[in-house]
């Protein structure tokens, strides 16, 4: 102890003791984000496809979905799924509640990214593809979507990075991931500074690794035409 009776003495061994659990939490954060992103890519792509359907209603419904989920807090969406839906008879576990809220939220952003990507491909591409004898579906599958994916890739990557950080919110309903583990350890051993500091370092490592990986993937897999 230094500096009087109220001074805090750092105990970095608390980090060493907590580290296995924190790493497990970080692995869960990665897993949850990955699963949520895969599902959100599917939902987002479906919504974007729906927004291209002729007729007024489908595009408007997609736009409404996107605006509602993008303009309300994720935390409230999580609370509606976990605390609100049981009132209507739908009771989900913390894991399923957290995951579905993350998927619905990320899907709204993905849908908008895909839609913009699809619309950024020049119309002539579709017409040219059709005139070579491809069917509509083939033209979409082999000509339009590959270009739209390349255009969308950086924004989708940013959304994934946001998802990793946003997944910390599901700790509030008791879904176990990095933030939950950090709360759990520090509320037990009161080493708040060290444990939250260690959790911050783990998030930084995750996010920086992910951004580097995405940049590499963008350069390697999707070279500019």
């Amino acid at each position, binding site marked *: 102890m230094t500096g009087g009776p109220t001074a805090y003495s750092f105990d970095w061994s608390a980090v060493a003791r907590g580290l296995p659990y924190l790493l497990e939490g970080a692995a869960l954060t990665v897993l949850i984000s990955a699963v949520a992103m895969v599902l959100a890519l599917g939902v987002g792509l479906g919504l974007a496809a729906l927004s291209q359907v002729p007729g007024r209603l489908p595009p408007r419904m997609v736009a409404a979905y996107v605006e*509602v989920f993008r303009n309300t807090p994720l935390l409230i969406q999580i609370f509606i799924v976990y*605390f609100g839906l049981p009132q209507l008879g739908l009771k989900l576990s913390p894991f399923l509640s957290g995951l579905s809220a993350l998927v619905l939220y990320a899907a709204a952003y993905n849908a908008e990214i895909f839609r913009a990507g699809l619309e950024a491909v020049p119309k002539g591409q579709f017409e040219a593809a059709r005139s070579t004898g491809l069917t509509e579906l083939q033209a979409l599958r082999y000509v339009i979507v590959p270009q739209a994916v390349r255009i969308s890739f950086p924004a989708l990557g940013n959304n994934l990075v946001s998802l990793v*950080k946003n997944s910390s919110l599901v700790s509030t309903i008791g879904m176990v991931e990095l933030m939950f583990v950090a709360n759990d350890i520090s509320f037990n051993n009161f080493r708040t500074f060290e444990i939250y500091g260690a959790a911050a370092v783990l998030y930084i490592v995750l996010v920086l690794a992910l951004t580097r990986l995405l940049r590499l993937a963008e350069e390697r897999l999707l070279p500019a035409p």
Partner: protein
Amino acid sequence: MNLTVVVETLPYLLRGTVSTVAIAAAVVVLGTAAGVVLGLLRFVPWTWLETVVAWVVELVRAVPLLLLIFFIFFGLPALNIRIPTFPAAVLAMSLWMAVNTSEVVRGGIKSIPRGQFEAARSTGLTGLQTMRYVIFPQAVRRMIPPFVGLCTILVKDTSLAAIIGVFELTRAAQETIERTLRSFEIYLVTAAIYFAICFPLTRFAQKAEARLHRP
């Protein structure tokens, strides 16, 4: 669904909304001021300073806002820095706002063609004057859409302050639900109030963005 509960509890939720707007306003002022300074520091002639700022921004941006709030509220007391809930939340969010705003400022300035710098310098303006009179006024127009987008995210993220007990809209909703046990209706109304604030901001950002691309 119980609509009388909604009507009865609405005044309390609106009190929470006032607090939410106050928090967001405070953060916009503090965070933006700091963010503009951080963003401009990326263009100083001293590379070491530029590098330090770039790293600080990248590291802070990688940490979830919830963790920033917990670190400041629960972690800093370890250093004998005890900050009450409200200023702790405002401080954490301002830090978040500052680093993100700095990226908007940097992006806006970088989007101005180099020729503008060179032309301005060749007319005899100093580096500082060039930034002040030529580059920054043009860059500001391009910063507005992403900046308003950032403000929308901020309004949504003020809900995180409820987790450490700050009274704002989400906290008001939680307190109301503890009394009425009508979580579905109350959270739905809460979401609607957030939407009423955020949607106009989103629309404004979209319009400003569209205006940029018009000749």
